[in-house]
């Protein structure tokens, strides 16, 4: 309570009503600027108060649970800062909704290639969680489009890395490091992303043999297999789409319909070398598990029981991959990450370089970092 009062006094304008869906915290703060976010983090570090970052709340089930005194929401940092239409880059604050950004970009036929599912997801959350969406097979991971990042570090410094340039090797690659860091280094207060032009037309081709279609098609956007079958997602000119359909031997269906998110009590993603997908798909189908597999990428989203996941985890880790929990019942005894990666000491030291007091989403990463 004392803390609450002290924080409330210091952070006057930043105090916000609790955010829908967020867990209890002593206080919810919603900074309006990077400077505010940094001073709150500086205060938190000084008093060893853990801070949990909150975007749209759609992926808060990932990682080890963070018990925090302060919940920091990005909803008041939601501007598009600088859109260089002719240079194909955009700089945004973290609280911008993906749907809003993509809607805006679409008017000039561009895309940031963020997740296809509309809703509450924020750009900051997607970048911090390292989410890449279905079109990754064609456009690569979000990480490869992170050009510049501003970060309010766990000890309250405001730093910038990278640059608003599509090619740049000036200094260490902090934008890539921040992507997928789950808030463990601090709050992403701004980021610049590389954009892609939207191709003229989109279409799908249902296919029988996913791996065969993958080998025949040239650079499709995605090849996704679910319990209902496999679909090749294409883009390009009409002539290109027709040529691709002919090559893989299937019928063109205009437009794109992406799989709806799988919803269950337990949601997980398998991350495996692409060559392991086909076999896993067989296994999942045989076990009657609901899945969405991205061939050529190696990402398989699924819902299942904890028992099923425990068995899958062994298989997946044997391929050098990971089974990552997206959502799990509270208190369930299941490791959200599984076997920690190599170089865990290095991971710990890198986190400490940005967050020496360990107050920024403490413990969320593999190894409890």
């Amino acid at each position: 309570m004392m803390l609450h009062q002290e924080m409330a006094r210091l952070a006057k304008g930043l105090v916000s009503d609790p955010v829908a869906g967020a867990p209890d915290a002593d206080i919810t703060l919603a900074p309006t600027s990077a400077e505010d976010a940094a001073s709150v983090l500086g205060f938190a570090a000084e008093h060893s108060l853990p801070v949990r970052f909150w975007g749209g709340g759609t992926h808060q089930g990932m990682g080890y649970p963070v018990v925090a005194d302060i919940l920091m929401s990005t909803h008041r940092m939601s501007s598009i800062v600088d859109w260089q239409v002719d240079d194909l880059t955009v700089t945004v604050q973290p609280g911008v909704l993906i749907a809003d950004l993509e809607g805006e970009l679409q008017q000039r036929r561009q895309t940031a290639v963020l997740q296809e599912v509309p809703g509450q997801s924020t750009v900051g959350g997607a970048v911090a969680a390292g989410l890449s969406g279905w079109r990754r097979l064609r456009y690569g991971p979000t990480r490869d489009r992170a050009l510049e990042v501003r970060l309010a570090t766990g000890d309250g410094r405001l730093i910038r890395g990278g640059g608003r340039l599509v090619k740049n090797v000036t200094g260490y690659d902090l934008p890539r490091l921040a992507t997928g860091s789950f808030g463990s280094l601090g709050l992403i207060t701004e980021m610049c992303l590389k954009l892609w032009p939207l191709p003229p037309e989109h279409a799908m081709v249902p296919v029988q043999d996913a791996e065969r279609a993958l080998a025949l098609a040239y650079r499709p956007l995605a090849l996704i297999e679910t319990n209902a079958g496999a679909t090749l997602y294409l883009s390009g000119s009409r002539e290109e789409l027709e040529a691709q359909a002919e090559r893989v031997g299937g019928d063109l269906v205009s437009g794109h319909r992406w799989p709806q998110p799988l919803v269950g009590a337990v949601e997980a993603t398998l991350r495996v070398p692409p060559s392991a997908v086909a076999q896993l798909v067989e296994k999942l189908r045989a076990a009657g598990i609901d899945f969405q597999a991205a061939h050529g990428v190696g990402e398989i989203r699924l819902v299942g029981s904890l028992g099923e996941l425990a068995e899958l985890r062994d298989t997946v880790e044997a391929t050098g991959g990971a089974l990552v929990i997206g959502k799990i019942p509270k208190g369930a005894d299941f490791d959200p990450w599984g076997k920690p990666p190599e170089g865990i000491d290095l991971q710990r030291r890198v986190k400490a370089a940005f967050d020496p007091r360990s107050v920024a989403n403490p413990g969320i990463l593999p190894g409890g970092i």
Partner: protein
Amino acid sequence: MTLVDDLQAILGPDRVLSHPLELLVYAKDAGVTPGEAVAAVLPETTQEVSACLRVAARHGVPVVARGTGTGLSGGAVPDEPALLVVMTRVDPAWEIDAASRCAWVGAGALNLDVSRGIEGLGMHFAPDPSSQAACTIGGNVGTNAGGPHCLAEGTTVVHVLGVEMVTASGDVVVLGSAAPDPIGLDLRGVVVGSEGTLGIVTRVLVKLTENPPAVRTLLLTFDSLRAAAATVSATIAAGIVPAALEMMDQPMVIAVEAFIHADLPVDAAAVLIAEVVGLDEGVDAEAATIERIAVEQGATSVRVAGDDAERELLWKARKNAFGAVAQAAPNYYLHDTVVPRTALADVVTQIYEIAERFELEMMNVFHAGDGNLHPLVAYDAREPGKAEQVQAAAEEMVRVSVAAGGSLTGEHGIGLEKRDLMGLVFSPVDLDAQARLRDAFDPDGLMNPGKILPRGARCYDYGMSALPESEPS
């Protein structure tokens, strides 16, 4: 025991070089600054690299990784007398996973050898620096190398899924994997482009890119540099990201033509080489759009390569441009800055003005599509005061690039050459954060010290107060 004795105990006498004359060859790269080595070793395996690093750490001697030394920013040149670890022989058997489109290759493998080695699979390693016949994959990782075809495909970091690295203490760690998004922080992404300051990379998991079914290569001719630059900006603005979009100015075209004989238009003010790849059904339309844009911007002629031989000749001309100049001038200084693509025409114009003001002989060949400029100054260092003039002009060129929203380097790296300019783009707090990141990998500062970050980059170097560091648990 001396350092050299200890190293010889690991590698035998033949693979440890310590004679000053032998070292002379290794203690420089393709840039302008020489350095000094205490010894050079030629390990063949990861274990040998690790053992050498342990010895160096015990002796407190700094270590510099070196590929083939084609770097242009002094990355592989010791800033203080150091042990050079020459990586060219570290190339164990490759492990190719064709179905996952990736392969583990040795850091010592040459870039072009990797693409040639997987040719039979219909795939290639996308980053294609002009030096690709001579530079190592480890060096590409060190500098995050680019190349003409990195415009659509991205630079080395996009094509490196994992690295096996020996840290300063001699530990071997694998970062990244063939599976997407390995859990934890993306340390692989930080190692790429770290210029050997975080550890020595011994093996690299490279992504393999499918060869395109169709290719069209265009040679566009302009009577002004501005028109060529405007064509680049307009192409990108029109939503086309070609596979490559390279520019050469007239002095460069003349130099290259004399060397390669590719029937280049020597009377043009500038030429663009544009390449589109994709399906047979798509490339012609895209090529036509680029042609239309070029003509709108004032192109005086457009030539489409008629066959593979003509296409290869154009690329040979482009990729041998530096070699052509090296033949003609006793010394050359190759710049590398990067600007937003919308600023290309303006910055190029300013760079010409600078060269003129310093009375320098300058020519340009660059990755225009990325906004990555490479003004090249040919000079004779024996001429009194010339080298200083070249240096002063170089700094001005960097400054105009930065003023236009650009940065210090697009692909050659910071190295020794630009570390003291880092303050132009980063604040002391930014640099301090980078220094802390570096220290997390190499607390004793033994890995390629003096590179990337200017001295005094750490706030605590100045005694500036930051929060006290807690003990990493």
